[in-house]
């Protein structure tokens, strides 16, 4: 049988049962639509997360207390809730003396209620030093950052994010005003420019940033740091700076066996590659969930094709009597299911693209959040391939059943 005839025959076969063909196709349309939609959401989220990490700063190295044991997907002990007190002021001072390091800023964090007159709200406060603002690319809208002198003198000064300013002061200028944080009075010296979501969804506009010394001694009662942000000097590679950070920490903490490190040092690239891996897994996972509906759609096709084969037993017998070989019959029915899934796949891609656009419009224009339009070409190509393969896989069994029919029994079938 010629390709042209096989195509025409299969097409007519489907056309003769239009409603059934459309309903059967619907399963594949839904499957492919959900694959496209979820993979697209995964890709958008991935781009969003990676962009946020990249937006934190450049040439960044993060020093976190506690060792990371096991695979690269493990997190340091401190992140898992274990209190580790080994990262201290002396370490930061050593970093600052190192030529390959441009800046180093420690960080401690806590949650507290911040009060201005009758307004109050619970926010994250960050205790840090002057370098922090440069390292993390913060810009000022008004006023000034606090200085290392403020840090050393335990000055009760604060820099606040734009969103927090709006919550507490409405439209008024916050600079020069005083707020209370755990009953300690802070004078606001600077208002930050809008920065948006930080890594891991931290809202960088809803922060209050205070000198690390005040945060440690007067708010949290601790003398260690939870993170040190290090910026490598441009003249050195980030990997060299990272190795220097490790050497300094081992020396300061008197560690001779690298297996006994009590800290974790990650560069921004490490974080990006880790997050890239995690989000890729997430995208694949979403795609896999959506594929379940594709399998259900495929089984639907198999089901309908089996019914169709039984219904058309007499036609199969006739075709065989007139000279069709088993192969001709197999190809005819296989073409029908491939055509169903291929067309279903294309329609599914169109629907998927439509929904992806809709999600984008809703999130960006209506909800006004940051979102990316992502319709990965690879997802489109694989959707077409997967749907056609679904046609072959789920069409093969019914087509074989059709091809194996004995022509006499088939002709006699009523």
């Amino acid at each position, binding site marked *: 049988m010629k390709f*042209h005839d096989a195509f025409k025959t299969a097409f007519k076969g489907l056309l003769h049962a239009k409603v059934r063909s459309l309903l059967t196709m619907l399963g594949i349309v839904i499957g492919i639509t959900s694959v496209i939609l979820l993979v697209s959401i995964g890709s958008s989220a991935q781009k969003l997360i990676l962009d946020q990490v990249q937006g934190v700063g450049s040439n960044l190295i993060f020093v976190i207390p506690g060792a990371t044991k096991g695979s690269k997907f493990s997190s340091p002990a401190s992140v898992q809730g274990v209190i580790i007190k080994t990262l201290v002021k002396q370490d930061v001072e050593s970093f600052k003396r190192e030529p390959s390091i441009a800046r180093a800023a420690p960080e401690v964090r806590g949650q507290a209620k911040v009060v201005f007159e009758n307004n109050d709200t619970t926010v994250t406060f960050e205790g840090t030093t002057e370098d922090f603002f440069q390292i993390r690319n913060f810009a000022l809208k008004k006023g000034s950052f606090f200085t290392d002198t403020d840090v050393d003198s335990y000055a009760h000064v604060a820099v606040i994010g734009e969103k927090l300013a709006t919550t507490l002061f409405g439209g008024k200028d916050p600079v020069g005003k005083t707020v209370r944080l755990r009953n300690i009075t802070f004078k606001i010296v600077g208002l930050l420019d809008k920065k948006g979501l930080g890594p891991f969804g931290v809202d960088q506009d809803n922060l209050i940033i205070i000198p690390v010394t005040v945060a440690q001694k007067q708010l949290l009662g601790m003398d260690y740091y939870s993170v040190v942000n290090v910026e490598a000097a441009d003249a050195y590679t980030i990997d060299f700076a990272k190795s220097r950070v490790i050497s300094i920490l081992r020396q300061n903490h008197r560690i001779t066996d690298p297996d006994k490190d009590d800290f974790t040092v990650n560069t921004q690239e490490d974080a990006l590659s880790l997050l890239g891996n995690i989000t890729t897994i997430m995208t694949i996972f979403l795609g896999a969930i959506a594929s379940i509906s594709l399998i259900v759609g495929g089984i639907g096709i198999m089901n309908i094709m089996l019914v169709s084969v039984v219904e058309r037993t007499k036609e199969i*017998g*006739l075709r065989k*009597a*007139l000279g069709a*070989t088993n192969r*001709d019959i197999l190809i005819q029915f296989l073409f029908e299911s491939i055509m169903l899934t291929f067309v279903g796949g294309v329609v599914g891609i169109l629907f998927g693209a439509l929904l992806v656009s809709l999600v984008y419009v809703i999130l960006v224009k209506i909800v006004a959040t940051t979102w990316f339009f992502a319709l990965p070409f690879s997802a489109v190509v694989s959707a077409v391939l997967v749907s056609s393969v679904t046609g072959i896989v789920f069409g093969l069994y019914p087509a074989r059943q059709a091809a194996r029919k004995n022509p006499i029994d088939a*002709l006699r079938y009523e």
Partner: protein
Amino acid sequence: MISLDKLWKTYEEGEVKTDALRGVSCKIKKGEFVSIMGPSGSGKSTLLHILSFLDRPTGGQYTFSGRKMSDLSDIELARIRNKEMGFVFQAFNLLGTSTVYENIELPLLYSDMDISKRQSVIEKAVAAVGLSEKINTTAGRLSGGQKQRVAIARALVNDPDIIFADEPTGNLDSHSGVQVMEILEVLNNNGKTIILVTHETYTAEFGRRLIRLKDGEIEVDEPIRERHQHAGLLK
């Protein structure tokens, strides 16, 4: 053209064995018009199925145009059915939602004929059964007699040497039945070999040789001398 040598066909269902054909031997020459008759269960349909390569015998030898069936693969049998044999069935077996043209085209889909030549061949076949004006009509909308004429056109389209007709008038009124038989008669006059299975005497008498089967054996094999005895009355 056809040579049967002690042909057996035994059906097995579980432990029950039924002999549908019990050593049938005969020869049919090119250009003959053979009517096969016999009561139900006599084996006439089984014989037709084997003769038309739709089924294989369980014993004996069947030679068609010099080729032994036992030497031919299923694919070769399909090729011969397509190129050298034409089929007319009692139930017409047309694709009801396809047009007359598409129904007649069916055997050509499985042949190696060039697509550009198809139209003229189909038009010739449909003209031979007098249905040229119905060529684009959906087969389901035709009368019984017209359906059977389309089926004959389909059997002719590959220009086969032999036409097998299985009760071709069984579903027709007598007038349409006669029309169909007359077409077969003309085809035979033009050199086609016709093998007809029927249980109606008047239909059988269009043939020139009668083979009567009983219990899977040939009971009578004789020329038909008095033709059209009943058919003439019906005209």
